[in-house]
């Protein structure tokens, strides 16, 4: 009888110990409390009716820490990283790679196949085989080049820190500043709240630039004269939301636009007048991602998007012709 009581007491003590440990040390609430009444996730959902039908192919460059992509007129794909530039053919097969003089933050290929790699306050110009030809430097302190494009006569570089566009001639001289805020504030200049400031060169030599804080794209002539703009701030799919969108742009066949946005990560297509045509991919396709993917459009009309997390390039082939 005594042994039975002792056993029962010990068993009871152990049971109470387990229950008490659970009661004492378990957290009362492991689930998120009711949100603060602001469902950001709901705002990120894409209306399926707006999604353009497309097929997806993923290619994986050998280089890591990719930061930028570009496409040349032959459809070859260029991927820039901290280490250099890798060149792949249109199917994603490795062709060549070369080391850059510094980390590549933005990338472009000129019509005559020179590779422009921007980073810091300079743009390095490489021949197709990777030989460094020249370097363009803004010469301005605190410059931060976030985008570079090469037109037939000029090289344009977007400087997010100084909030201007630099135009160089092909020799790297005669720098011209475009979009500078003037002293009497009649021109507000570019509003660049973050490091998102992108450019695209049109076939006619003119320039399209994002004014991210104003949520619009602005058109400039080659000599820096403002021509027009389009774009509107808002949460709806045709509009640009967030503090600074679109983060990246590319020009498609016929002058249509492809835009890439951050926060609500989505890639959208607009016609040459800025009329919304549809969404290539929405935030659902970029789970956990907040940064906008760099984009490019190849001569076949495929939309290329850089997936930094996966160190891959997604290639969307739209079913509908441009």
């Amino acid at each position, binding site marked *: 009888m005594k042994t039975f009581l002792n056993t029962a007491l010990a068993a009871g003590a152990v049971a109470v110990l387990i229950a008490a440990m659970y009661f*004492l040390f378990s957290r009362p609430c492991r689930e998120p409390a009711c949100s603060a009444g602001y469902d950001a996730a709901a705002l990120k959902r894409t209306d399926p009716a707006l999604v353009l039908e497309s097929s997806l192919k993923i290619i994986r460059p050998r280089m890591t820490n990719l930061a930028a992509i570009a496409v040349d007129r032959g459809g070859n794909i260029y991927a820039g990283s901290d280490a250099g530039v890798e060149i792949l053919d249109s199917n994603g097969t490795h062709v060549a790679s070369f080391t850059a003089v510094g980390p590549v933050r933005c990338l472009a290929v000129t019509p005559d196949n020179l590779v422009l790699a921007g980073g810091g306050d300079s743009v390095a110009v490489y021949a197709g085989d990777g030989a460094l030809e020249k370097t363009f430097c803004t010469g301005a302190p605190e410059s931060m080049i976030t985008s570079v494009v090469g037109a037939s006569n000029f090289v344009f570089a977007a400087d997010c820190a100084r909030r201007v566009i630099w135009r160089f001639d092909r020799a790297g001289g005669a720098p011209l500043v475009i979009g500078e805020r003037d002293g009497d504030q009649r021109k507000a200049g570019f509003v660049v709240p973050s490091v998102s400031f992108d450019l695209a060169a049109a076939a006619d030599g003119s320039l399209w630039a994002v004014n991210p804080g104003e949520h619009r794209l602005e058109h400039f002539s080659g000599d820096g004269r403002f021509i027009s703009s389009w774009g509107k701030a808002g949460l709806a799919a045709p509009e640009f*939301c967030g*503090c600074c969108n679109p983060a990246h742009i590319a020009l498609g066949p016929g002058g249509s636009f492809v835009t890439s946005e951050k926060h609500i990560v989505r890639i959208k297509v607009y016609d040459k007048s800025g009329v919304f045509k549809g969404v290539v991919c929405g935030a659902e396709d970029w789970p956990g991602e907040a940064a906008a993917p760099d984009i490019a459009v190849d001569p076949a009309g495929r939309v290329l998007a850089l997936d930094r997390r996966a160190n891959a390039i997604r290639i969307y082939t739209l079913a509908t012709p441009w």
Partner: protein
Amino acid sequence: MAGIEKYGAVKLVTRRGFVVGALRALCLTLLGWLGGAAFLRWKCLGVDGTWACGACPDRAACRFAAALPSKPASGRRMVWQLDPKKCIQCGGCAVNCVRQPSAVKCVHSFEMCGYCRLCFGFFQPGAKTLTSAAENQLCPTGAIRRKFIEEPYYEYTIDESLCIGCGRCVKGCAAFGNGSLMLQVRHDLCLNCNECAIARRCPASAFSLVPADRPYLFKPQAGKGQP
């Protein structure tokens, strides 16, 4: 010998009996300790969810408040702080703090701010007009002040006397902006409870003790890790 045993002067204890007695004493001690701890917890949870001895109606009115600040064995004073990188802006800081309004406030890192006209920490999503009208504001207490600097830039400052730490503005700024708004425990308000009532309920485990000489945790600046 028989007489001695009769009066109990010498009582022989077997080894088995000693072990059983020790086990019994241990169980009773454990039961007492656990019962007491469970009682205190139940009692303290009954007082607006706070940890206390049960004697106080309110943790803030604790008569032994001097004993509350956490002092680790090393002697270096530690204070509670939340990590903005882990914070999910659930709204718990506004309701779980023993101080009301909460000791957690929104703070603004001006180095990261874009001074945007359309600030998603200030405006309701889909606001019809970009004015400071109450219906456009995201903050339920109007704690954010919007001041025109120059076209098209605006400065946003926090009136901490109105801020309740709900994190709505932080959620908007993090979701659509540079993330310059963030929640922080203000140490001039915090009682630095031994077990922080918010930390105990934080679903993101964003709260931790940090050295009192480095009491704030901020996110990296834009361009240094921010998208």
